[in-house]
C-alpha cells in the first residue's frame, strides 16, 4: 500500500457532530488479554454476519483502495484546451459511453470522464479572463462546446437508463443500473440540452479562433451527440420519415468523424487526466474497481454505427404490422452468427416498440393480435373463424373469450421474448410451452365439438389447433437448438438432442401438411407454410444425419443417462400436464431412444451423407430462387443469408458416412461444434486439427 501522510489535523477529520478521543490503547491492551481465535462481537451479530464485511486493504473488495501508481494529479476542470485536444476527449468519452452500453458499470466508464462531476464548474461567469489568454485555447471550447456535449452525454445516459429500466432487459445481467448518486441530469429537459448543443454548433460554425479543420471535426462530434439525443427522445411511431432523416444525418456525421481522427495528446499532456479510471473509489459503490480497457476509436465508431443500424431496423419494423415478421426478425438476430448482436438498449427498445404496456405497435389492441395470429397461418380473418364457431356451436356459452385471453397472455411475451438475452430467451420459451399446450387443448376441445355438429375436416376452422401447435413446436425446436448455441450440452447429450429435434420437426411437418392442404394457395400464409416446410425438411435431414453420425457419444449407462435426460428436458415433465386432457405433442420419450438406435443400425438404406446432400439441395434451391417465405418483408435478404449459412453447414458435413456400415469406421470426435461458425450444427474437422485437440 502507498503509505501517505496520516498526520491529519483534528479540525479536518470527519466527526459527524461527535467528539472523539484516542482509544487505540484500549484495543492493544485487550488484544494482549485475548487468546488466539477468540473474539468479541455485538450480541446480535454472528460470525457469519462478520464474514460478509468488505475487507479494507484487499484490492478485490476495497473499492476505495489506492494502490501504487494510481495517484493522479488534481483535476482542473477549467484548464484551457486546444480544439484537437477537445476532439480527443470527446472521442474517448464516446468510447466510454459505448462501453456502458456494452454492459459495464457507469462508475467504470462514463463516470471516469471527470467533467461529468464538474459540470457546475464550467461556468464562464466565475472564471477570470486572464486564464484564457492563449488565443489557440479559446474559453468557449470549454464553456460552450464541452459543456453542451457533456450535458448531451448525460441526458443520453439518462434516456438510455429510463429505457433499460423498463424491464425488457435485466439489470446486473444485460446492463448495470448503478448510478452511484451521480446526476444524469434527470431533471434537465431534453430541449434545454438540445438548445445548448445547437448553440455550440452555431458558435463552431462562426468562430474564426481556430482552423476550419478542427471546427468541422468538433461540429461533427457536437451534431452527432445532438442527433443521438434526438433519436432517443423521438417517438418512433410519430414520424418515421423524420426518424429516418435523423439516422441518415447521424451516419453522415459519423463518416466525417471517421475521416477526422483526433490525434492522441503527448503522454505528458494534462489532458490525459481528464479521465480517471479509479474514480469509483470516490463514488458511492460497493462494486470493486475494474479498469475497463478502452477499444480503439474505430471500434467505437463501429459500435455507434451498429446502434444506428439497430435504430434503422426498428424504424422499419415499427411500421410492420405482422406478428410473423416480428418473430422472424427476432429469430434471425439470434440465429445468424454473422449479424452483430444488438446492444441491451436496442433489445429493450424493440420490446417497448412492440408493446408498451398499453397498445401493440402503438395502435392495436389485443383483438388485432388474435386476428393476426390466425390470419398469418390460415389466411382468413379471425372474425370469419369466430362466426363459423358461433354458427355451429352446440352450447349456449361460447368458448372464444377463454381462448382469446390465453392468446393475449402468450403472444406479447413470446414476441418480446425474442429480444431477451439468449439464456433468458431459452428459459422463457421453455416455460411458455405449458401455456401453448393449454391453448392447443382449448382449441382441440372447440373443434371436437364443431365436428360433432357436422363441420368437415376440410374447413379452415378445424385447423385452428394446428396454428397453436406450429407455434408450440417452433418453440420446442428453439429450446433444443439454442442449447447448442449456448453450449449447454455435454458430448453424450448432443446426439440425443438431434434425435429429439428430428422428432419435433417430424410432428411440425405433419402439422404443416394438414395446413397446406386447406390454406388458400395464393395467400401469403400458404407461401410462408411452403417455405417452412422446405426449411424444416432440410433441418430434419441434417439433424437425423448428425444424430446417427454421433450416436457413439451416447452413454448407454441407464443410471447416468436417465437423470441427465430428465434434468435437461424438465420442461416436458411438469406435473401440470397431467391436468390437461390432450396429450402433449413433441415431448421427449427416452424409452424410444434405444429401439430407434437399433432400427437405424439395421437400416441398410439409410445414408447420413445422403441426408446432408438432400438438405443442401433443398436449401440451395430456396436461396437460388430467392425464396424467403411469405412474411420476411424487408428481411428477405437476411433470411436468405441465414439459409446460405445452413448450406455452408451442409458443406461442412458432406464427409459424413455414406451408409450405416461406414458408421463404425467414422471417427465421431471429428465433429466440431462452434457456435460462431454455425449455431446448431457441427463441422467435420480436418485430421490435423483433430490430432491437436486430442493432444490438449
Amino acid at each position, binding site marked *: 500500500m502507498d503509505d501517505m501522510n496520516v498526520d491529519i489535523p483534528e479540525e479536518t477529520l470527519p466527526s459527524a457532530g461527535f467528539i472523539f478521543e484516542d482509544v487505540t490503547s484500549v484495543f492493544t491492551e485487550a488484544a494482549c488479554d485475548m487468546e488466539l481465535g477468540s473474539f468479541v462481537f455485538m450480541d446480535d*451479530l454472528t460470525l457469519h454476519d462478520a464474514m460478509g464485511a468488505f475487507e479494507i486493504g484487499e484490492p478485490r473488495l476495497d473499492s476505495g483502495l489506492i494502490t501504487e501508481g494510481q495517484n493522479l494529479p488534481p483535476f482542473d476542470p477549467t484548464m484551457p484546451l486546444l480544439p484537437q485536444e477537445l476532439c480527443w476527449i470527446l472521442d474517448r468519452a464516446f468510447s466510454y459511453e459505448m462501453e456502458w452500453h456494452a454492459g459495464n458499470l457507469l462508475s467504470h466508464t462514463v463516470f471516469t470522464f471527470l467533467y461529468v462531476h464538474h459540470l457546475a464548474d464550467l461556468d464562464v461567469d466565475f472564471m477570470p479572463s486572464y486564464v484564457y489568454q492563449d488565443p489557440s485555447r479559446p474559453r468557449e471550447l470549454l464553456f460552450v462546446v464541452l459543456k453542451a456535449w457533456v450535458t448531451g452525454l448525460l441526458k443520453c445516459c439518462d434516456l438510455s437508463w429510463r429505457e433499460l429500466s423498463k424491464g425488457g432487459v435485466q439489470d446486473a445481467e444485460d446492463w448495470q443500473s448503478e448510478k452511484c448518486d451521480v446526476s444524469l441530469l434527470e431533471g434537465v429537459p431534453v430541449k434545454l440540452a438540445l438548445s445548448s448543443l445547437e448553440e455550440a454548433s452555431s458558435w463552431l460554425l462562426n468562430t474564426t479562433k481556430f482552423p476550419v479543420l478542427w471546427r468541422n471535426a468538433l461540429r461533427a462530434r457536437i451534431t452527432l451527440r445532438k442527433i443521438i439525443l434526438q433519436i432517443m427522445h423521438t417517438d418512433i411511431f410519430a414520424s418515421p420519415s423524420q426518424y429516418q432523416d435523423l439516422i441518415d444525418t447521424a451516419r453522415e456525421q459519423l463518416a466525417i468523424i471517421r475521416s477526422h481522427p483526433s490525434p492522441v495528446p503527448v503522454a505528458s499532456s494534462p489532458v490525459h487526466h481528464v479521465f480517471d479510471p479509479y474514480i469509483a473509489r470516490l463514488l458511492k459503490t460497493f462494486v470493486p474497481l475494474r479498469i475497463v480497457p478502452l477499444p480503439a476509436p474505430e471500434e467505437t465508431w463501429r459500435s455507434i454505427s451498429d446502434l444506428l443500424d439497430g435504430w434503422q431496423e426498428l424504424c422499419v419494423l415499427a411500421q410492420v404490422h405482422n406478428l410473423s415478421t416480428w418473430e422472424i426478425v427476432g429469430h434471425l438476430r439470434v440465429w445468424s452468427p454473422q449479424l452483430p448482436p444488438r446492444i441491451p438498449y436496442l433489445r429493450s427498445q424493440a420490446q417497448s416498440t412492440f408493446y408498451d404496456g398499453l397498445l401493440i405497435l402503438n395502435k392495436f389492441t389485443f383483438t388485432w393480435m388474435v386476428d393476426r395470429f390466425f390470419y398469418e397461418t390460415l389466411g382468413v380473418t379471425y372474425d370469419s373463424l369466430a362466426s363459423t364457431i358461433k354458427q355451429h356451436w352446440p352450447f349456449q356459452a361460447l368458448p372464444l373469450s377463454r381462448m382469446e385471453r390465453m392468446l393475449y397472455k402468450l403472444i406479447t411475451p413470446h414476441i418480446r421474448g425474442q429480444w431477451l438475452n439468449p439464456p433468458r430467451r431459452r428459459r422463457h420459451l421453455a416455460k411458455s410451452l405449458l401455456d401453448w399446450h393449454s391453448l392447443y387443448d382449448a382449441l382441440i376441445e372447440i373443434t371436437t365439438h364443431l365436428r360433432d355438429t357436422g363441420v368437415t375436416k376440410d374447413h379452415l376452422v378445424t385447423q385452428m389447433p394446428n396454428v397453436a401447435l406450429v407455434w408450440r413446436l417452433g418453440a420446442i425446436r428453439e429450446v433444443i437448438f439454442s442449447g447448442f448455441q449456448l453450449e449447454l450440452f455435454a458430448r453424450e447429450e448432443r446426439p440425443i438432442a438431434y434425435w429429439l429435434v428430428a422428432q419435433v420437426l417430424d410432428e411440425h411437418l405433419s402439422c404443416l401438411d394438414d395446413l397446406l392442404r386447406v390454406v388458400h394457395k395464393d395467400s401469403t400464409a400458404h407461401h410462408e407454410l411452403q417455405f417452412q416446410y422446405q426449411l424444416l425438411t432440410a433441418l430434419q435431414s441434417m439433424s437425423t444425419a448428425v444424430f446417427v453420425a454421433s450416436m457413439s457419444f451416447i452413454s448407454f449407462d441407464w443410471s447416468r443417462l436417465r437423470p441427465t435426460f430428465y434434468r435437461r428436458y424438465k420442461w416436458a415433465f411438469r406435473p401440470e400436464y397431467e391436468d390437461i386432457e390432450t396429450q402433449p405433442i413433441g415431448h421427449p420419450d427416452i424409452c424410444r431412444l434405444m429401439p430407434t438406435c437399433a432400427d437405424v443400425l439395421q437400416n441398410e438404406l439409410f445414408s447420413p451423407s445422403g441426408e446432408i446432400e438432400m438438405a443442401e439441395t433443398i436449401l440451395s434451391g430456396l436461396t437460388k430462387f430467392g425464396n424467403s417465405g411469405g412474411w420476411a418483408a424487408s428481411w428477405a435478404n437476411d433470411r436468405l443469408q441465414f439459409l446460405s449459412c445452413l448450406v455452408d453447414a451442409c458443406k461442412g458435413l458432406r464427409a459424413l458416412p455414406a451408409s450405416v456400415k461406414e458408421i463404425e469406421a467414422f471417427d465421431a470426435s471429428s465433429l466440431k461444434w462452434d457456435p460462431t461458425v454455425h449455431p446448431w450444427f457441427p463441422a467435420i474437422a480436418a485430421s490435423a486439427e483433430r490430432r491437436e485437440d486430442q493432444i490438449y
Partner: protein
Amino acid sequence: MDTIVLSSSPTASSTPNLPKTPAIDHLKGLLKQIVRVTILDGRVFLGSFAGTDQPLNILLINAEEYRIGLEENPEGRYVGQIVIPWKLIVKVEGEVQQEDNGQMYF
C-alpha cells in the same frame, strides 16, 4: 471534564473462554459506539464498532469512508459493513460521552 465512559456491555457476545479483564471490559464497552478509524493511506472510517478478534481485525457497521487531502471527499461515502485489519490502522478513536452525573436531566 469530558471523559470516555467505558463499561462492560451486557449485550456483547464473545468466545466462552475469554478472560474477564479490565482491558477486555473496556473493549466491550466500545461495542455499538461510534468510532473513528484512521488508516495508513489517509482514509478515515466512521462507523459503529461491531466487534474484533484477537489479531484486532476491527469490524464496523454502517460505516462511511472519508478521504482527506488529495482527492478528498469531505462528504464521505457509505461503505456499509467493513473489516479493517490492524496492520492498516494508525489510530482508533471513540466517541467522548458526557459523564452521566444526573445533572443533565431535570
